[in-house]
């Protein structure tokens, strides 16, 4: 293929350990999680629902901040719009379960005009503006009497199901959406767009100089993240069956997304997953401690941010050199051990 003999001896690999092993592990996990409602007690399944909702949000936040450099503290805007999307379609007679993808599409459509206002803002300006957008969305939704106004509304369309059926279906749809979001993010980051994002993350000026349309890439990611967060809000509505503006648009969502992705590690797919596991582990152990739980969580976040800025997954990866879901490129000479450095992170 290449005529250059120096290039001919170079190989590019995309994973550290055997991809077959990872594949088998992933299939096993997917099977176990699909059967979860029949295996585990309901209390644990409810925790899993919340786990997947947060995982979807954190994965989207990681895409925004870790890959596209947009620190948003207003993603709860789309969480809320997703929840209210399900309510709206359910009022119009659509099954709430079918309304979830529709709500995600609505979230993406609403995000498009917002990008024209937000994308050109940088750093802190962007962060504050997203917060104001979320606050504005909450106030506007709270004035719509069809959607229950400020006091909220019970989502119709669940009455034909028994509580057990409702729990099972809500779990399965939440898990399905989480799986779609994770696989989609993985494929997106391994695609050409992923390469573009890595280039922007590493050096924006250099990326522009080789002809990358930075604004277009950012806009795409913002819209995808909006759809993902709307889907998270939508599946959450399936298990809560009641929506209320201050809950749906709560700043708490932004806080959790940020904590989970930063503690786990930005800029890796595994980071938010690990972050979610730690978050729910802490929550289950410290739940009786009331407010102390959040004091500890906040302190952990500060400590990780200052002393382990690449997150806990970053620490694991540096120590053991493993990549479970690799999206980077490794360059090595043929027949020699490959370089441990990720090409895209140099």
């Amino acid at each position, binding site marked *: 293929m290449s005529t250059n003999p120096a290039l001919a001896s170079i190989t590019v690999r995309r994973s550290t350990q055997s991809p077959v092993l990872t594949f088998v592990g992933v299939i096993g996990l997917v099977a176990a999680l699909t059967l979860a409602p029949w295996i585990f007690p309901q209390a644990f399944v409810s925790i899993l629902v919340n786990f997947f909702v947060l995982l979807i949000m954190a994965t989207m936040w990681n895409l925004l901040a870790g890959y596209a450099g947009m620190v948003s503290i207003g993603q709860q805007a789309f969480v809320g719009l997703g929840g209210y999307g399900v309510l709206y379609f359910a009022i119009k007679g659509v099954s709430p379960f079918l309304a979830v993808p529709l709500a995600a599409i609505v979230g993406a459509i609403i995000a498009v005009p917002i990008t024209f206002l937000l994308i050109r803002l*940088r750093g802190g300006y962007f962060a504050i503006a997203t917060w104001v957008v979320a606050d*504005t969305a909450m106030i506007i939704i709270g004035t719509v009497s069809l959607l229950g106004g400020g006091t909220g509304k019970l989502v119709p369309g669940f009455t034909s199901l028994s509580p057990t059926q409702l729990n099972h279906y809500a779990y399965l749809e939440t898990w399905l959406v989480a799986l779609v979001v994770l696989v989609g993010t993985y494929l997106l980051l391994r695609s050409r767009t992923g390469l573009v994002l890595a280039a922007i993350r590493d050096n924006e000026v250099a990326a522009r100089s080789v002809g990358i349309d930075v604004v277009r890439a950012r806009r795409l990611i913002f819209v995808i993240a909006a759809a993902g967060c709307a889907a998270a809000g939508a599946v959450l509505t399936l298990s809560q069956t009641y929506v209320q503006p201050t809950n749906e648009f709560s700043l708490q969502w932004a806080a959790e997304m940020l904590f989970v992705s930063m503690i786990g590690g930005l800029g890796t797919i595994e980071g938010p997953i690990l972050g979610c596991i730690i978050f729910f582990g802490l929550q289950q152990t410290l739940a009786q401690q009331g407010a102390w739980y959040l004091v500890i969580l906040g302190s952990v*976040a500060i400590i990780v941010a200052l002393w382990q800025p690449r997150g806990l997954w970053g620490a694991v990866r540096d120590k053991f050199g493993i990549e479970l879901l690799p999206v980077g490129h490794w360059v090595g000479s043929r027949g020699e051990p490959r370089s441990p450095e990720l090409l895209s992170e140099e």
Partner: protein
Amino acid sequence: MIWLNILVEGALIGGFYALFACGLSLMFGVMKVINLAHGDLAVVAAYIAVFLVPHLHVPEVLSFLVVVPVFGLIGYLVQRTLIQKSIDRDPFTTLLVTFGLSVVIENLLLEGYSANAQTVNIGSLGYNSWHPGSIFYLSYVSLVVLASSVVILGALQLFLSKTSLGRQIRAVSDDQEAAQLSGTNYRHIFGVAAAIAFATVALAGIAYGMTTQFSPTSGGVNLLFAFEAVVIGGIGSLWGTLVGGISLGIAQQLGAHFNPQYPTLFGNILFLIVLAVRPQGLFGKKTALL
């Protein structure tokens, strides 16, 4: 006459927003730090004024005499340790660290003093008001807050333009490396800026506690309004922050005139219009956006 009332009420509230926002504006302008714990710091100051200062036999009206200098000192120390360490990492880290701080402060207050609403007790000053021409009811506290924010912003502006320390703050804010090359210790300068920011937010927090009830979670919404005041006015301009605060206050009063649910909405819309039309703010420099 109703419109004049909206303007006056808006200006009075705006004075408070400006006082609240000037520390935020300073830290944003000088260190490029978005302090997400700013609102909670104000609430902490109000709690100290209510629960700790009375032990020193200082009346609550005068609690700022104790709390403000203490906060200045805390500001310097927090900047030199936590915030400086996170600035040395990257902007993400400052956001996460100040956000973590905000969550920690809020929940420590909840544990210590419960979610009950509190006020700073200032006796009859709290409910007496002045009504010129029997049209307006201007509470003395709001007038005092507006007057103090004008005085403080003026004094800060003078300090930044006339004193050596102030010039060093502006130098570091404009070009950190060049200032360092000409012998300025930027870490110390950052500490001084943070001390001023913490001192002013302590004053704002006590003023807030004098005019309305507060609880451990009061910081968030005030932080949002303070951010709006800073961005509307423009980063790096203290007078801009005053104008931004007053514009925000007037927009909110206008909203309240139409519907009691609308004050925040009108403020947000003003903010979004400014971002769309003039993202650097009314008095900001375009370079501040980068």
